[in-house]
């Protein structure tokens, strides 16, 4: 039963902490959309590191790797196609309040733009 060495595990751990510092540091540098992309990229890389090193995906056979990737693939279907709707939809918010009592936690929803097209 192959077992990963202590040095590898500790090295991966250190790598993860460095990436954490990188994420947090980069958040304070004003890069606009870049911040989000960098954060997500680093997070993906950290999860990949955990999956391969700690969860020994490199030693598991193809089916297990497929199972590991399946959920990410199917969630991306959900994200891309539903955002395909949100991004291409004309936004016409209308004033709306819960008729009986004011919605808890703050006043009624306010239209953010010209209400009527």
């Amino acid at each position, binding site marked *: 039963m192959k077992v990963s060495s202590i040095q590898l595990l500790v090295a991966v751990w250190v790598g993860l902490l460095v990436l954490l510092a990188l994420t947090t540091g980069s958040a304070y540098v004003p890069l606009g959309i870049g911040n989000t992309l960098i954060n997500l990229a680093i997070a993906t890389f950290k999860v990949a590191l955990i999956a391969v090193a700690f969860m020994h995906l490199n030693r598991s056979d193809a089916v297990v790797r497929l199972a590991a990737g399946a959920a990410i693939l199917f969630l991306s279907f959900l994200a891309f196609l539903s955002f395909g709707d949100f991004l291409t939809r004309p936004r*016409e*918010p*209308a*004033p*709306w*309040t819960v*008729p009986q009592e*004011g919605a808890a936690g703050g*006043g*009624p*929803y*306010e*239209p953010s733009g010209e*209400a*009527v*097209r």
Partner: protein
Amino acid sequence: MSAGLETPLQAASTLGTTVDVLFLTMLGVTGAVAIAVAVCIGYFTIRYRRSSGADRSNPPSRVRWVEVTWTATPLIIFLGIFLWSSAVFSQFYRPPRDALRVHVLAKQWMWKVEHDNGRREIDTLHVPVGRPVELIMTSQDVIHSFFVPAFRIKQDVLPGRYTSLWFTATRSGHFSLFCAEYCGTSHANMGGGITVMPQAEFAKWLASGPEQAGLAARGFEIYRRVGCSGCHEPTSTVHAPGLTGLYGRPVHLSDGSTVVADETYIRDSILQPQKQVVAGFAPVMPSFQGQLDEDDLIALIAFLKSRARPP
């Protein structure tokens, strides 16, 4: 329930006829495939029944060209139907410029319709024949759906958002209007009627209705009826902020911050005046929560907008 209202087999709107043509074509294609499959199954079952001596030499279990054709043919037919249907569908989303605009407010279990000149109807909609009509719709509570089978149109009406729908009636008559999205107890009774009239008759009907001032005029009437004018008119004795030219102007609040007087600010100041008091004024204004419903608020805001320009 809706006696005398038709759901005709022949569409009564321009888009409806194009949809009917596509529907009949689909019926033909799918009908042919269904009959073909049924005939094959019937024929094979009889011809190759166990007791028959039919020739069963080298039964095929894979015939490449057959499999390729019955994969490619449906693909081509489907793509054709997809393109045709998408072309028709995109017309649903391109209302003509000169369409007659009508506001529809759906609420649990009735349709409130309001024409641009303020003429209001409940559960009925009068439209001229031959002229495009565009409905701007929103819901006051749950999701409803404006469905007129005669025009082959349907559009969900969502709370918190405007959705729109357009049609051009091709013949006059009385057509059924249904709510097609389940909306609670009386979802089945939330129907109504679309009355399509010749244009002259429609113009007369539109004008003759009970004198219904425009949105802003109605706002002014509410502005006086609930007593806003009592305090906010310049002539009043009460020390209250002037509302002339308010819409869009920055307002200095008592807590030092500044807010642009948009619709939200006006709505909040009417429903919860204590939250944001204008600098230099006492928080004496009473709340109108519960006295004014959705339409009144829209009308009041329209009125204040109309006074945005100094008189």
